[in-house]
């Protein structure tokens, strides 16, 4: 049985992650998502992080990030700067349940795509706008990136090594935070429409979604007037609690001791009965008082161990510990395999790409699981299906749109990003290592034939 959102049609004018990730998860669960893009303005996720780092040919159909964020969607190219393009969009909105976008309000107003405009076309439409700082307000037209909103929300300020400056993750983290909240928001609006027959406008501020997830720091300020210091990997209530070196190059393990039992188990596994017998470490409070000393002692012990083996031993004794997994560990992980977390996706034959696994969803629904996934569309892949099949355009009308580049199948000014060679990326330290037999390993692990 297919996902619970069958019959819901979403028109998505998204870019990068914040809206595309949310609409991907809704598409996974059965919604029909029509992803708009244009041949005039090539989205950067089609131009970078390319399969085999190959910028020749139709590289725009081989971008990792585009595939990652746009699974299970239909692709339509449309030039919205032209009347003909906007007319097609209006026709689509007339038959859509949801319109989702993450451009600045300035762009949306220029295209006359505000909620009140859409309501005239489809009175019960649900519109969701995702912006860095919110659709209204003095900063509303300021463009934003994930790191920028991680900063504005207060999260980056709190994060960092003890005694050091603020730090943030190296992926656009809050784009996902916003995307995850957007899935909830759209589902709430669909519930409301089920109850009342009414649509509405959802204004997602990526900053606000992130602030909603750091009440510990924000309330300490509003109530106690305190700004907490950066703690790195420490936890005020646990010791040891941190990330410790293991055998090998850039190998680590996270270990957290949350009880006396866990402490004694750690001493057993590390072969240090003398620690267990030492009264200075006899309870949580005393272990917290001796935090630095314990961290140094523990790091000296862990650094000869394999991080995965040590994790297994510690977990077997009830200690919450985890190897710091790199992407290869994560891809070839037995637990995720049993849970079928990664899903193999077939790419369009024109791309020359083999079937490859992609990360799935963080949820499973027992009675309404998702269908086997389809790859993100190559550029313009569903132009005809949508224009003729859904909107009833004639061959001649479609031909005109093609002729005038309102729709198309390739960017007008293609420019791909060729990254340095892998040897160079390893030399610069951007990649830890690379393998040459990876394709075989992926094929074997995921049982991909051919």
């Amino acid at each position, binding site marked *: 049985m297919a996902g*619970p*959102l069958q019959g819901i049609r979403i028109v998505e004018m998204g870019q990068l992650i914040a809206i595309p990730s949310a609409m991907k998860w809704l598409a996974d669960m059965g919604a029909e998502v029509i992803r708009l893009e244009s041949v005039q303005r090539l989205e950067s996720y089609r131009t970078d992080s390319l399969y085999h780092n190959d910028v020749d040919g139709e590289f725009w159909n081989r971008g990792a990030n585009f595939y990652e964020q746009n699974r299970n969607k239909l692709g339509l190219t449309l030039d919205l700067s032209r009347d003909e393009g906007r007319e097609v969009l209006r026709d689509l909105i007339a038959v859509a349940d949801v319109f989702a976008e993450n451009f600045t309000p300035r762009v949306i107003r220029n295209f006359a795509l505000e909620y009140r405009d859409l309501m005239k076309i489809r009175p019960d439409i649900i519109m969701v706008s995702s912006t860095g700082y*919110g659709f209204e307000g*003095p900063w509303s037209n300021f463009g934003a*990136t994930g790191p920028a909103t991680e900063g504005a929300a207060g999260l980056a300020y*709190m*994060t960092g090594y003890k005694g050091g*400056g603020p*730090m943030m*993750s*190296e*992926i656009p983290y809050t784009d996902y*935070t916003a995307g995850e909240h*957007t*899935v*909830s*928001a759209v589902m709430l609006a669909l*519930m409301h429409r*089920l109850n009342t027959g009414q649509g*509405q*406008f*959802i*204004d997602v501020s990526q900053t*606000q*979604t992130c602030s909603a997830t750091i*009440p510990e720091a*924000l*309330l*300490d300020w*509003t109530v106690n007037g305190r700004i*907490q210091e950066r703690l*790195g*990997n420490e936890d005020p*209530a646990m010791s040891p*609690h941190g990330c410790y070196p293991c055998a090998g190059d850039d190998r680590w393990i996270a270990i*957290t001791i949350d009880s006396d039992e866990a402490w004694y188990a750690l001493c057993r596994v590390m072969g240090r009965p003398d620690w267990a017998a030492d009264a200075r470490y006899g309870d949580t409070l005393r272990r917290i008082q001796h935090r630095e000393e314990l961290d140094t002692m523990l790091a000296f012990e862990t650094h000869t161990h394999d991080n995965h083996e040590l994790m297994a031993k510690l977990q077997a004794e*009830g200690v*919450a510990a*985890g190897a710091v*997994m790199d*992407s*290869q560990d994560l891809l070839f992980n037995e*637990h*995720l395999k049993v*849970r079928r*977390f990664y899903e193999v996706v077939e790419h369009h034959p024109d791309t020359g790409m083999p079937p490859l696994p992609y*990360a*799935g*969803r963080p*949820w499973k629904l*027992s*009675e*309404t699981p998702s269908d086997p996934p389809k790859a993100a569309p190559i550029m313009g892949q569903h132009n005809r299906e949508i224009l003729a099949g859904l909107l009833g355009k004639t061959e001649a009308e479609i031909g005109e749109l093609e002729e005038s580049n309102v729709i198309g199948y390739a960017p007008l000014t293609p420019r791909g*990003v060729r990254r340095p060679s*892998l040897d160079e990326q390893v030399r610069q*330290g951007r990649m830890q*290592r*690379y393998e040459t037999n*990876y394709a075989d390993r*992926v094929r074997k692990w995921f049982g991909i034939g051919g």
Partner: protein
Amino acid sequence: MTSGALAGVKVIDLTHHIAGPYATKLLADFGADVLKIERPGGDPARRLPPFHHDDPHHEKSLPFLYLNTNKRSITLNLKSEEGRGILLELLSDADVLVENFAPRVMPSLGLDYETLREQNPRLVVASASNFGQTGPWRDYRATEIVEYALGGLMYIFGAYDREPLKHAMNQAQFKAGTNLASATLMALYHQRLTGQGQRVDVSIHESIASALRDVINNYTYLGAVRRRQPNHTGDLTRLRAVSDGYVLPNPGIGAGLNWQILVDFLDAPQLDDPRFDNASARLENAEALGAILDEIFATKQKRDIFYAAHEKRFIYGVIDSPAETIENPQIQARNYYQPVEHPELGEITFPGAPFLMSGSPWAVNSTAPALGQHNGEVLGALGYDARGMAYLAASEVI
């Protein structure tokens, strides 16, 4: 008067700590009737710091007060036969049961999915757990940092030459809580259409692992394993210290960058130098470039350079402390922070709506309930009189 999107939805909430309660908070703040069922000692999150005026009392944990807005609370010992019976009675007309125990707990209480479905086939049984309800790691123990490590976010987070780092606070829990709310709503939507309930299985671990951009693809597309990035001092988008804090510069990424625009914007003629005027030259002279940029930025002020940048549509960002976040004119204009009256503690200012809904708005009417605050009301409705309740209390069921 508009009502929340979930008016008429009845949720029985067995959750504790952070991930589960954040999910049911999202449901409650958008109108669902959420009944929180706590063990007689209370949700352990009642002991989470920081506390109101640093008083470590179980009604004064600030994260707890935030995570449990708009909910009612009863206490129930699910290990007792009567407690379990009362739960099953409450479930008979509920739409959703949400829990985030370790996966072995619900079956051990005789509350496996089959039993619950028999009681109420419409029931959505939604679970969040460290590693999901199945798989070889199902019973592994985890804390926040362990989820960061095993989820793949930690390896690429932090300084190149130091140990991997996690975000401050409890991001993995909140991510999973958000995903739990989303997945629960999908199952609820299906229930409203078909009358059919089902199980929802959310993994905190997978909540991290499903949000890593192209980190996995770097391997499947190229065979390369990404790591924490080196701190190239000349990196134009690197976080920079200014005189009163930090900014995140962003001159317009990519090959199209016109160096002269940057030189003019920063008013830094010393950058007008062949050592820096193209991408490869900048990489070559990264250290020199970094030193000059550090000097230039140190003379700037955070808000000034941020606003000046946005006049030119450069996507600069600011790193704001909690205090600055609350004073931010954008956040104030949107009335993001919301005062909520607590019966004992007075007014508390909370982070507000994560997103604004025009037709079914977010609303917080009450902070978290006191432990067992609604025992009388809820058990009374089930037909227990004062004597019955006294018996339940004496036998430690409530």
